[in-house]
């Protein structure tokens, strides 16, 4: 399981790999939190996200958009997500802590998740994802 930042001039492009699709969604989530808040993130407060969508790309986009919303409005920075996919439904339990300017003001705001440049695939090594965050 891993993710890396690819070169993209205007925005942040992430490539993630994982053995399962559930884990792939989890990697995209971790990449989003890393871009926004850096790596000093702890748990303690949980939030649950339940979403369904017509296809897998929309499901991922809607899930990450919901994470953006919850994080901003509840002022929470998440370190972990347990993601369970069931068809075109997602159930995710997020673990995080209140935003602390001293530790979390290390990243950049993500304005939105884009369909442009999003691709999901599977090969012998597992699942792979490219996704673009507008920053």
């Amino acid at each position, binding site marked *: 399981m891993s993710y890396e*930042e*690819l*070169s*993209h*001039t*205007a*925005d*942040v*492009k992430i490539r993630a790999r994982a053995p399962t699709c559930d884990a792939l969604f989890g990697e995209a989530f971790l990449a989003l939190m890393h871009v*926004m*808040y*850096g790596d000093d993130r702890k748990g303690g407060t949980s939030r649950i996200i339940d979403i369904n969508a*017509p296809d897998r*790309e*929309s499901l991922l986009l*809607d899930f990450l*958009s919901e994470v*953006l*919303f919850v994080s*901003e*409005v509840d*002022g929470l920075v998440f370190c972990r997500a347990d993601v369970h996919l069931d068809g075109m439904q997602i159930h995710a339990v997020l673990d995080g802590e209140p*935003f602390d*300017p001293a530790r*979390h*003001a*290390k*990243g*950049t*705001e993500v*304005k*939105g*998740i*884009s*369909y*442009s*440049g*999003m691709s999901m695939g599977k090969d012998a090594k597992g699942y792979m994802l490219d996704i*673009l965050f*507008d*920053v």
Partner: protein
Amino acid sequence: MPQGVTKAGPNEWEIPVGYVPGMRVPGRFFLSDTLEAILEPGAIQQLANVATLPGIIRYSLGMPDLHWGYGFPIGGVAAFSLDEGVISPGGVGFDINCGVRLFTTPLARRDIKKPRDLVESLYHAVPTGVGAKSSEKLTPAALTEIMNKGARFAVDAGFGLERDLVRCEESGAMKQADTRAVSEKARARGIPQSGTLGSGNHFLELQEVSEIYDETAAAAFGLEQGQICCMIHCGSRGLGHQVCTDHIKIIETAVKKYHIALPDRQLACVPAGSPEGTAYFGAMAAAANYAWANRQMILHAARKEFVRMFGIGYETMPLVYDVAHNVAKIEEHQVDGHRTRVMVHRKGATRSFGPGAPDIPHDLARIGQPVIIPGSMGTCSYVLKGTATAMERTFGSTCHGSGRIMSRSQAKKTLTGKEVADQLLARGIFVRAPNEAAIADEAPEVYKPSSEVVQVVHDAGLSTLVARLSPMGVIKG
């Protein structure tokens, strides 16, 4: 330049119909030889993709700060027929009415004895960076009023002068705002963030007017050589981002209903007059109004710091102008010899209305609107004026900034924030940001040279140079 793209004139290129399947019109973009060398092929592909959308008029246009975005390229302009054409949230972007305003002061460089203290006090006066919240929490009713009234709400609440309003595009509020189309989620994000700068490329910059190119226009705009001024660059914050997210979801679903074939899902669009299109336009206008109120509140906070530190009068700091560079608007343009109302999308492009055009302050009617082009951190910004050429050629549009050339990940590998800050300090420019990474991300090297971009629009006549502004201090979000 990719095969198939042809030179159409000095600094002008054409993407022929057929470059991607389904193009209805050619693409046209403006680039100098220097800028051509650093253009990404992805941006050309995106410009061609826009040309496939129904009802597009004349060209899919690219300004010289054209670069690879999502959906529309950044620096993209497209006008659509109101009858047969579409509206697309991807043609505006997540940061609805991201824009720039500039105000002047009666001060000169010699009056600023302690520039670091001024930058520091401005930094503390304006909530900045990830997680920043406004000091005053709005009520839900006040938020609705902001979305309807825009900058007018802030001025009525004591955050500015009546004159500020006439110096804003649309007088600081689009009348088509429909707050019913703004979700509860968008409202929840908007309530704590009014008057905040945000992060990324948003900034507040202290500048000096370092060169005047057009004495008549500069005098009309209230700009003088050596004058200290202040530029504010930000948008509609989480509220606007959520409006875009919400309506892309609605429109993405509706695309099939209207039988629109798309080369990229982020270009999701619907007929401009459809229920979904009307709802997006109303919500987008509401978010645009939030952005104008936001910039007005930041202007007020900055002016108060100048009053406190220098004892100058609040009203001695007039607003030069406020421009929106991520927006869709219904405007009247000449199409096939007839005055026609069209839906103009500007994504990373600035309106550049020339002399005699509507919605220009009365006293500037013979000059053209002020066009404000921010530089990157540490490079010059420019004031230009709108032109008749832009009205004829680009639906009254010009560039919006300098455009990135280096990715954020590359920037962080190449430079540390401290190195960038030290280099700028050596040139007399103070930088203040919540963290060092934010400085490295936006180092001058990661952008196209702003001087080159404005020279192209000046030479093409899409807007012409009035004044150059040199940075003295930067507050980065």
